[in-house]
């Protein structure tokens, strides 16, 4: 059994009287894709924020390769966030600098970790734009001139350029056209395999979870009600809520 990269235990967090997380355990090993599904307000995004150290839980622990994330200083956590971790926001405008060119957006993380050779930074940016299927001649354009799908792909390029080990994704396909979603999902799928990435993806799209994830956690009102192998949870759901969730998906 390989030791998990990220290992969280007993996470509990309340917003006043409202429980956001109740005794949640989750871990993820190298190269694994884990989906967290559940409807809006079930605590999915809160879990992601707690795991990535952006929010402190009331109780519980989060270990990154044995290191206590919650006890980490902000400097160390930020360093982690721009090197070994990545975070893809649901809204690309939260993860991009709209007043900076596409190339600058991709290059920022490289420069933040000390890259000081313009030619290399630009070369790397070009190669990443190609990986996320953005034309090389858009490299100096501002992201605000991009479509939603392109912005999201740019955000992924910007996140992956420093070759993180673990990427948190919060509804990366939310708000996109279905055709654009498929392209993005395929991209996430192939890049994560190619790079051996661990991905923790929050989604309410069951089909996306099936396509991408090795394992799945079903959350409801802050509680993980069911988890396991993706196809088993979706094809043989045990918990009443999971059965409801699965049966509510419209078959195309």
């Amino acid at each position: 059994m390989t030791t998990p990269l990220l290992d969280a235990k007993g996470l509990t967090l309340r917003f006043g009287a409202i429980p956001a997380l109740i005794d949640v355990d989750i871990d993820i090993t190298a190269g694994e894709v884990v989906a967290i599904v559940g409807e809006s307000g079930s605590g999915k995004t809160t879990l992601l924020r707690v795991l990535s150290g952006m929010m402190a839980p009331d109780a519980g622990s989060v270990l990154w390769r044995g290191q206590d994330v919650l006890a980490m200083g902000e400097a160390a956590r930020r360093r982690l966030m721009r090197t070994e971790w990545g975070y893809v926001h649901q809204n690309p405008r939260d993860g991009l600098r709209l007043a900076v060119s596409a190339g600058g957006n991709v290059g920022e993380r490289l420069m933040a970790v000390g890259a000081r050779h313009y030619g290399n930074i630009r070369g790397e940016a070009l190669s990443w734009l190609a990986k996320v299927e953005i034309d090389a001649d858009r490299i100096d354009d501002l992201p605000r001139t991009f479509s939603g799908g392109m912005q999201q792909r740019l955000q992924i390029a910007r996140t992956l350029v420093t070759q993180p080990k673990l990427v948190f994704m919060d509804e990366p396909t939310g708000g996109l056209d279905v055709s654009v979603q498929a392209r993005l999902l395929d991209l996430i799928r192939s890049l994560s395999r190619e790079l051996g990435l661990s991905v923790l993806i929050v989604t309410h799209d069951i089909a996306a979870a099936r396509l991408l994830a090795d394992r799945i956690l079903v959350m409801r009102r802050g509680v993980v009600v069911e988890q396991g192998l993706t196809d088993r949870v979706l094809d043989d759901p045990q918990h009443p809520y999971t059965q409801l969730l699965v049966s509510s998906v419209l078959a195309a």
Partner: protein
Amino acid sequence: MSTTLEGYNFAYLDEATKRMIRRALLKAVAIPGHQIPFGAREMPLPYGWGTGGIQVTAAILGPTDTLKVIDQGADDTTNAISIRRFFTRVAGVATTEHTAEATVVQTRHRIPERLLREDQIIVYQVPQPEPLSRLEPRRTETKRLHALADYGLMHVRLYEDIARFGHIAKAYDYPVMVNGRYLMSPSPIPAFDNPKMHRMAALQLFGAGREKRIYAIPPYTDVRSLDFEDHPFRPIRAPHACALCASTDTYLDEVITDDAGGRLFVCSDTDHCAERQATAQEAAE
């Protein structure tokens, strides 16, 4: 002292205010390049005319000091004359136009061409002390970026310049790293002057009145202009010789001489230029 204005404390500010500013200055010297907040006072001139610089000067000035004030390199512009006269009236200190004679030099937009000495202090007037302000408008966030030395963003700005113009297009207020730790705005001096800050013998103090910030560079501190390995920092100057003193290694101002496109390049540092002309004159005689 008999010539100073009645009813005002020496150098205009009251002693408590001076003490507050001096504390900020000491802190600033102790942490080179780090911005220290201070309680900037209302001064008898508008923001943007050098209120920050004046307060710093007032806080460090003693009766035996000799003050020089320059504005864009010149001693004889309105702003320079006004400030000089202000301190003559409120502190009664001697003033000079000669860099070599000054003990305190207050400046806007230039560093004198003549090397400053250990027994001199240069005070910069600063409109915007935060080098990241245009990239990150939130003060809380820029503070955090400084605390974590997270300066990738500044390089993004330079990257954008190269991508757009083929070179770093910042000609003034060109960001520097102080003592290998803090990113700092050198105030709107031309990038040409940046190398003069590096390991300067004189103490360098910076005052931003409207933004209420003070920062400093102690003598002999490393000051490096940001750049890329393949696009190194290059100080830019007009490719001409001074029309008055024939200097080819000083920063030049372009002067329009008529309505027919006539123009002239002359030293921006008027004192330095006059000195060179005098020396040339002597040699000729």
